[in-house]
């Protein structure tokens, strides 16, 4: 029962994506919408990404300091471990989980509202491929802008650790700075960026899918928005496991 239901949802999702990915009716219109979505979904997310990253960076540094008190470990371990946490998981996976909440609910409720107020029907009647017109700019905007957000998150996360070492002196700022440069693996940055591309696609497509298939009224729009956030979060974590296995092992 549950299996057949999931399979049929997956099939519906595949058909939806197939309809979404098409040559836009008018490139000029598409480009305008794409830029608008970058502003709305991407640029407007920069502040929250910065704030959260600074705090998590700071908390990581404190936690690492508390848990690496053994005299066998060099003091710069704090910086090194904070960097690894941020590059490997926080700035891609956790950040995208947060964005699934912020951006995913925004997309699902916007498209869902257009569905229940018959705006999507109006597009279809005019002969517009509504899935392509509405969803493709969002999907491309998310995928193309997510690396910017990830880089913001990585740098401000590391900055957060630095700030806490300056403010509280849990460790010497210079030791922290030495730590975040020690044994640096460039691939980890790429790994985070590559993962984030997949996560961005998942957020935009899953949220659009649930919004697009709302039927009923305002109540259903709210439900769709919740479902979008829950499903895309689970899918991000699942994809994280698979991508980590593929990219790091």
């Amino acid at each position: 029962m549950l299996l057949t239901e999931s399979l049929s949802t997956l099939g519906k999702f595949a058909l939806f994506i197939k309809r979404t990915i098409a040559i836009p009716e008018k490139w000029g219109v598409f480009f305008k919408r794409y830029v608008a979505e970058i502003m709305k979904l991407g640029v407007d997310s920069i502040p929250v990404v910065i704030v959260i990253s600074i705090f998590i960076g700071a908390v990581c540094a404190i936690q690492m300091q508390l848990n690496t008190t053994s005299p066998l470990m060099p003091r710069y371990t704090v910086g090194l471990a904070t960097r690894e946490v941020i590059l490997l998981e926080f700035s891609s996976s956790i950040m995208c989980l947060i964005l699934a909440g912020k951006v995913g609910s925004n997309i699902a409720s916007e498209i869902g509202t257009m569905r229940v107020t018959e705006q999507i029907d109006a597009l279809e009647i005019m002969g517009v491929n509504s899935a392509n017109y509405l969803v493709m700019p969002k999907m491309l905007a998310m995928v193309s802008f997510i690396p910017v957000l990830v880089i913001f998150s990585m740098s401000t996360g590391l900055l957060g650790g630095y700030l806490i070492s300056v403010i509280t002196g849990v460790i010497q700022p210079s030791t922290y700075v030495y730590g975040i440069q020690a044994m640096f693996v460039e691939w980890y940055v790429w790994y985070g960026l590559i993962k984030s591309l997949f996560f961005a696609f998942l957020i935009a497509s899953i949220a659009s899918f649930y919004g697009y298939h709302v039927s009923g009224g305002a109540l259903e729009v709210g439900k769709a928005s919740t479902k979008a956030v829950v499903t895309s979060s689970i899918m991000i974590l699942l994809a994280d496991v698979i991508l980590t296995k593929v990219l790091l092992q």
Partner: protein
Amino acid sequence: MIEVRNVVKSFDGVEILHHVTTTFQAGITNLIIGQSGSGKTVLMKSLVGLHRPEEGEILFDGRDLLAMNRHQIKELRKEIGMLFQGSALFDSETVLGNVMFPLVMFSKMSKAEMRDRAMFCIERVNLKGAEGKYPSELSGGMQKRVAIARAIALNPKYLFCDEPNSGLDPRTSILIDELLSDITHEYGITTVINTHDMNSVLGIGESIAFINRGSCDWTGNMHQIYTSGNKALEEFVFATDLFRTVQKYALQHPDEAGIER
């Protein structure tokens, strides 16, 4: 002209439309009337291809919608304008943006020509001066008029209106009806209007199809409706004392009501 033949539509195994057959003529206002829940919206959405009926034919001047592929439907839709129950204006666009939208998507006009055409349509529905406003700043009647302007922007051959005066006061309703009727005659459009408003039925019902529980029970016009002899139709149209009085008067003065003997 649109010919509907034996159209059957079900949802989840429940048949909603039972072999509906009727015809909508060009250049006049064709009404589909019936109680709430009788299947008017389902019929209209089937006519424009938003629902896909299991059986039947829907001929747009001879071209069968149900035999068309996606591309052909898309081409046909460029000849169709539609007015939705809730107006369905794009919230993020101004009045001008809404009316220009179909032109931007589908016409090969220059920007200035599009603007001129959109302004012409906006003036046609008496909304000059409101072109810079957003839908949320307009009254229900004004939103309906913007939707009409948007629907006629590309000079449609066919115009579909789902309850164009639901939620409007009687005076505004009549203005909308008159506007739709004028536009229909002016441009020779095949106009199909869903309604359960008796003022519309008796005011612009040049051709009327009565849908009763998913079947087309009666067809005629506003003059014939007084003497239909159809029980369900009588109960539906002359449900209130006011309209029973109107009926009585019409039957006593058949010449005035245009009743043929």
